[in-house]
């Protein structure tokens, strides 16, 4: 068993060194890049919602093949958004969210992304709410609900049409957002959401400084 494992690891390391390719930084620059706006339809189970926000790009690493042709790029960005979903009778949940974006875009514009985030949430209960004083008086509470933290892990796939057609900087994506209301009766209320949305980059939008790094494949 030990011999087999050693042989396997040896072959693996040999193969790696024989066929290894190295990405070298060939260019690094800062450029002004407009922020994107995005809007997502939300389905918290069967309960609908929407959120809208902006994405500020931070860093883009372009991976080029040995001929200088783009293979893929990895993006880092932050998103700020406001959203809500409506679960009739239970609550309507409004939330302000900040997410850090890890995105990998292939040469055809298809992408997958991972966005850990944190929201501040305020729920509004789904029906009229009362409280009772110590003397037994019953009174109605307006805007009854609770504040929660809402951490989230958002996984998505999509298509960037702007990669092949720069005049159309439009993205569509579908995301699974594993969020939770915290603390919820001392624990966390899972609040999974399916999101389907778009992202668009207006040329004249507010611009931000983007660090662009080009890495090119070099045979070792």
């Amino acid at each position, binding site marked *: 068993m030990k011999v087999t494992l050693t042989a396997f690891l040896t072959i693996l390391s040999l193969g790696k060194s024989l066929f290894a390719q190295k990405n070298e930084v060939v260019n690094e620059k800062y450029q002004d890049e407009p922020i994107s706006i995005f809007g997502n339809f939300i389905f918290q*189970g*069967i309960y609908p919602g929407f959120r809208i926000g902006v994405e500020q790009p931070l860093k883009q690493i372009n991976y080029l093949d040995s001929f200088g042709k783009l293979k893929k790029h990895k993006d880092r960005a932050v998103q700020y958004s406001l959203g809500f979903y409506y*679960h*009739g*009778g*239970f*609550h*309507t949940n409004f939330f302000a969210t900040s997410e850090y974006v890890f995105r990998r875009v292939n040469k055809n514009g298809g992408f997958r992304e991972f966005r850990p985030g944190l929201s501040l949430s305020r*729920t*509004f*209960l*789904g*029906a*009229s*709410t*009362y*409280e*009772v004083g110590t003397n*037994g008086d*019953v009174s*109605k*509470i*307006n*805007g*009854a*609900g*609770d*504040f*929660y933290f809402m951490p989230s892990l958002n996984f998505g796939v999509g298509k960037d049409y702007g990669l092949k057609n720069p005049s159309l900087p439009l993205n569509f994506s579908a995301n699974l957002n594993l969020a939770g209301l915290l*603390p*919820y*009766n*001392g*624990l*966390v*209320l*899972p*609040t999974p959401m399916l999101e389907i949305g778009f992202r668009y980059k207006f040329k004249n939008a507010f611009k931000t400084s983007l660090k662009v790094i080009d890495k090119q494949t070099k045979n070792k």
Partner: protein
Amino acid sequence: MKNIIALSTLIFLFSACQKEEITISTNAKDLFYVKNKGASMPILVEGNTSQKAFVLVVHGGPGSDAMSTMNNTFMDVLEGKYAVAYWDQRNGGNTQGGANHDNLNIATMTEDLRAVVLTLKSRYGSNISVFLYAHSFGGCLSASFLTKSNYQTLVKGWIDIDGAHNFPLMDTESKKMQIAIGTVEKNAGRNVAEWTSLIDFANNNNPRENPTVSGKFNGNAYTAIKLIDEVNKVSLPKVNDLAYSPNSLLSRVINFNSVYFNNGLEQELFNTEFSSKLSTIKTPTLCLFGKYDFVVPPALADDVMAKIGSTFKKKVIFNNSGHDPYLTETVKLNAEIIAFIEQFK
């Protein structure tokens, strides 16, 4: 300033969305919340509100729910005659809230129950008659309510269905029952292996040792009920949590675990008993127990009958039931409840 106006407008709009529904009809379906000490508890009133008699479900658990689990076809007859108020207790069912484990105790839950009764009276009129429909842990909570201050004056009757008003007594009687009935069943050659396991555990353990052992006896009690042929078997239509809007399936799951995540309440219940205070209860009382309830044995009904101070007290044992006679002998149980309410509403 603009932001403040916008925010105020938004809050106003969503306050307006929290619509007030107070229906006086034979087919009401009103939802509202009562907020108390960090818990926003939903109450769903269904049925006939026009008769001014309200059956308030004090569900079991703790950590279970009324709006979904107790709201099923077995309540249809009661809803036809009276209004049934399904209240999800704190840290149970669809109750929302934040970090409120410090308030998860019998004293606060007793105040919750008072708040719910007072809110019902505030909405539907101070002249309504409220009857506590208490099941299992709800029997403990309602005993706490009825023995506190003058709270019993707020209700017209106590329907105690397999109610656990005395946890130490419940533990010891459950052990006795598992051994006694288990031995009879084993000797009769029915489910021998299963009964042997339950009897051996009961003989070798003391449920009063700690809440964990007590919990194990509780689990075995549910197993024992399933082994009794005389207990009617039921199949209820499934409630679709997704389609039933005020319900949140995930909330129900999380809340059930929330109660046991912090063992403060479990520890408190382990030593909770209201037998010593039952003599202060003057409220008409109807005890409805399953003959084969190994979870909350019928001996607890005997304890209520012996010690309660009520002039009217009645015990009914359901011979084909375990812990849930409302499921297994629905018609007979509802008939007893209707006769009771008609007498005291």
